[in-house]
């Protein structure tokens, strides 16, 4: 790939395979990432309706983020009187009436998904970056060079996965580097290393994809027919941003995890079309202006 900025011919593409079916939602990856990369806390904010997720999303200082999805299924209500209810010590307490008025959805599944930069093959941030701060490394990962980034902010809306962001205090954009510095010394990235159940697997990309495919088939055999790979193994034309360096095994539609069903590098998808339209319009505009002048002056 000609995009690669670091020349080490012996390197292979490395990636993450995050298997949500063995994730226990412990957030070790979030903390291990902050520990190794020395990132600050994002501020302690209690978030409503987000289950146990209080960091909210990936940000310039949260490079791994665990989403919690409480999936419920409605069930018929127990048509029964309640202990301490009915005519309890609180006057109007009537839990039975309450039960009838408000259904109690039964817990179906509690899904955890450790989100991270996808290290796309067609990376929107990389395409957008005007300074070359974002580069593709010899491991075919996408990193921001902190000594180059000037904080233009263009990568932020260019990422179709909402990964990269600009730090409001520091002014530079930052995101997961797949622990580029550790990779250089043959070490596993911090999050994958810490993951207690090896839900985050790290390794040579080709091997990971094979493992992941086998995992999906194993789950299918076990009756988990919802299991699928998000970002690897797709047919050309259906790939997500040309395949994701960090891909996932999910068991629910991607929207549940804040992931788009389809994605492409916006610069590659829209850039040529828009440029052509823009230049055409500008040429037309220029011609129109010239024409208008010529007409006016001829008069």
């Amino acid at each position, binding site marked *: 790939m000609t995009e690669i900025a670091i020349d080490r011919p012996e390197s292979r593409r490395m990636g993450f395979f995050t298997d949500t079916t*063995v994730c*226990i*939602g*412990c*957030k*070790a990856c*979030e*903390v291990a990432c*902050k*520990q190794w990369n020395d990132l*600050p*806390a*994002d*501020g*302690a*904010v*209690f*978030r*409503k*309706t987000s*289950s*146990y997720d*209080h*960091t909210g999303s990936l940000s310039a200082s949260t490079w791994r983020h665990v989403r919690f999805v*409480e999936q*419920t299924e409605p069930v018929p209500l*127990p048509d*029964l*009187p*309640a*202990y*301490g*209810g009915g005519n*309890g*010590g*609180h006057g109007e*307490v*009537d*839990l*039975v009436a*309450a*039960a009838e*008025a*408000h*259904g*109690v*959805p*039964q*817990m179906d*599944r*509690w*899904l*955890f998904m450790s989100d991270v930069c996808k290290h796309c093959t067609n990376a929107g941030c990389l395409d957008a970056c005007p300074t070359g701060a974002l580069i593709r490394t010899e491991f075919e990962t996408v990193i921001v060079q902190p000594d180059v980034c000037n904080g233009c902010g263009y990568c932020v809306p260019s990422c179709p996965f909402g990964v990269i962001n600009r730090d409001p205090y520091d002014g530079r954009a930052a995101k997961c580097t797949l622990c580029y510095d550790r990779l250089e010394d043959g070490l596993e990235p911090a999050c994958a290393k810490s993951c*207690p*159940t*090896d839900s985050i697997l790290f390794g040579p990309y080709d091997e990971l994809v094979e493992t992941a495919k086998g995992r999906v088939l194993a789950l299918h055999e076990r009756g988990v027919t919802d299991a699928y790979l998000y970002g690897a193994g797709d047919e050309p034309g259906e790939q997500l941003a040309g395949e994701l360096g960090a891909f996932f095994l999910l068991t629910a539609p991607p929207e549940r995890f804040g992931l788009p069903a389809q994605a492409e590098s916006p610069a590659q998808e829209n850039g040529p079309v828009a440029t052509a339209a823009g230049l055409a319009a500008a040429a037309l505009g220029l011609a129109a202006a010239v024409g208008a002048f010529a007409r006016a002056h001829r008069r």
Partner: protein
Amino acid sequence: MEAHPVGSRWAMKARERGAKIIHVDPHYSRTSAISDMHVPIRAGSDIAFLGGLIRHIIETESYFREYVVNYTNAATIVNADYQGPEELEGVFSGFDSGSGTYDRSSWMYEGGEVASAAGQREHSTQAFSDRTGAGMMTGNVRSDETLSDPRCIFQIMKRHYARYTPEMVERICGISEEQFLRVAETLIANSGRERTTMLAYAVGWTQHSSGVQMIRAGSIVQLLLGNIGRPGGGIMAMRGHASIQGSSDIPTLYEILPGYLPMPRANDDDLTLAGYVSGGGSQRGWWSHFDNYIVSLLKAWFGDAATPENGFGFPWLPKISGNHSHYPTMLRAFEGKLDGLLVMGQNPAVGSANAGLQRRALGAMKWLVVRDLAEVETANFWTEAPEDIGTEVFLMPAASHVEKEGHFTNTQRLLQWRDKAVDPPGDARSELHFTHHIAKRVMAHYEDSEDPKDWPLVNLHWPYSEHGSEQEPVVEEVLKEINGYDLETGELVPGFAQLKADGTTSSGCWIYSGCFADGVNQTRRRDPGDLDAPGGSVSPEWGWAWPANRRILYNRASADPDGKPWSERKKYVWWDEEREQWTGYDVPDFPVGKRPDYTAPDDAEGMDAISGDDPFIMMADGRAWLYSPSGLLDGPLPAHYEPYESPVPNHLYPKMGANPAAITWTHAANPIVPPGDDEYPIIASTFRLTEHHTAGPMSRNLPWLSELQPEMFVEIDPQLAAERGIEDGEWMTVVSPRAEIEARAKVTSRVQPLRMGDRVMHQVCMPWHWGAYTSSPQGVTGDAANDLIAISGDPNVSIQESKAFRCDVRAGRRDRATTERQAGTQDVESDHPPEEPKKLSQTDQADFR
């Protein structure tokens, strides 16, 4: 999983190898999410559930018969006088309703004998010998291996649990019959020769007024299914603190000495070493070496001053005479009877039951020493009302785990050494440094004393050398003392088998003897071995496990009575006929050369009395006890009793409510909701979060952890929330008679109202990690769940009932500036001394309808 994420690494591996994971918990946690089945249970109804399993296993004849007959006391015949709760309306024979205690003699095996109790009080070592069966005359015990004798334990159990039917389980626990049966069938299908089932619990399970009996009920299930002493089986206590196991083995606990030797107990005769040994020692089984251990301990403590003539210094040891545990001590402090307290790495102002009372007790002391990494609530409790609180407080910086060397004993009894990485900052020092230098000062003060009471201090053997500018004592010298020396040669002893009672050996903790064998710090070994080799997961060269580096206790039970593995798949320790010894992946927990077909003669003593097919060598009869003829204070078999603060009657024993032998401390500042009180209709339970640690000082001050769980919250089901107008993420208040606390509401279907027979019951669940103070600008604070909880006690170990209590909830924040609700300051006089806790009055529970 929720509280021990790395432990769940192996659970997940097991799941991917085909294991089924069942999670029984009132609320749906992260553990439930990865389990095959979540079984929501009403908090505190566990024995009804486990009793139901026991009944099902017996009724369907699904127990592992060969294991049960040979390795447990199922066949043993019990005294004809024994009667159980079926016959006596909820109590066992021997109950004295006046004192709320049992005379346990009728529970004995027929032909067996318990060490006679001296006078009104227990003998010094009674509780201990009870636990181990020491002193029991097993030789005359009868048994019926057909398990058909109506007085054999198997038949007694069958009768005892006959009414624990699936319908009853549904009615009591709120678990549907169908789900209960699925659990039972799964357990049965995964136990036996080829498969084993493991029961793991986090220690919240013990926090009930029948806590010990709950664990017992779990072990009965496991024994019936043949899952003890085998790989992949057992009962795993997932303990909460790094070295909580170690601090029980080498106890900072009042009723035991290192190695689970009992603390001397005051008695009408002046206790002598001989009397202590005869009470605690056993004629049969491993405890027949009792005298070796206590003498070696005294030699370690008093050195040359400990001689046979002076009973090795034993007479000078302090004696206990009641319950001196944490809660009575704090209640004494509350009454102004305690001068001072030293707190090290604990935070009772947040972490102990009735935390509001704890804080006031701290304020009634003259002085307080707190040692921790940062300022904690226990050190600055006085800031609430400085002008009223006269406690003098020393808050001392402690060294962290990387700033000192030493070893932890982790939950699997594994001793692991930590090397020192950096110096502690500033005036921070290790507790070893603190203790050593306080000891030096105290000993200097008494150097010339002639007073007999000062004998232990004058003669205290304190030989530790110091190093460095901080004068830290040399840690390995302490470890060597714990391991023990042969005092004649000056060599370290290789293990506890070499300890002697004649004063020629020393050992600070006999069960740890061998941790410095061969002059090598065994706890510092770091060779994991080949984990993929057969049995490689044992990793015997990683650290050192007590006793004698055994990783699975009673592992003789992993082989059948003939010494062959139960199955190839589950082989672990077996008899090697060629080499005439026990062998396997682990160190055999059995005399290594004792043939499986050895039969103990009737008059045998010591280890000779253990036959070759009796794997449970610490028990006098070598058998695992389905039924405990002695050892427990509240019954030989677990029976279902309601929690103190149960909102429902006891459906199994309508005359009973809570455990009749359980203890409480009646106190105006420690009120308990009476049964039938409608004011607190909701059941509450507490739990831990992955992101925080215990009472919070190790996590709430850390920005990286605080942001993950920033505020105290209460999990509440959508139905109750709607009924009370509580919205997700908004404030809500939880009220108990002790306190009212505010928290964020987490309205979630992970908490479900329980369908119990003909009614619906609501539960709320809350974490207990928050407290009023953080030392970090990016730390978090919140109200403490323990403010809500009453001080109470299981009869056996005085643990409080904090996993099932009653409360009410409402929307909005609390009204008061403080959480304490019923101050109880006007009337602090309790109606009994704290160290003699009161049994729960039966009249308190009468007529619950």
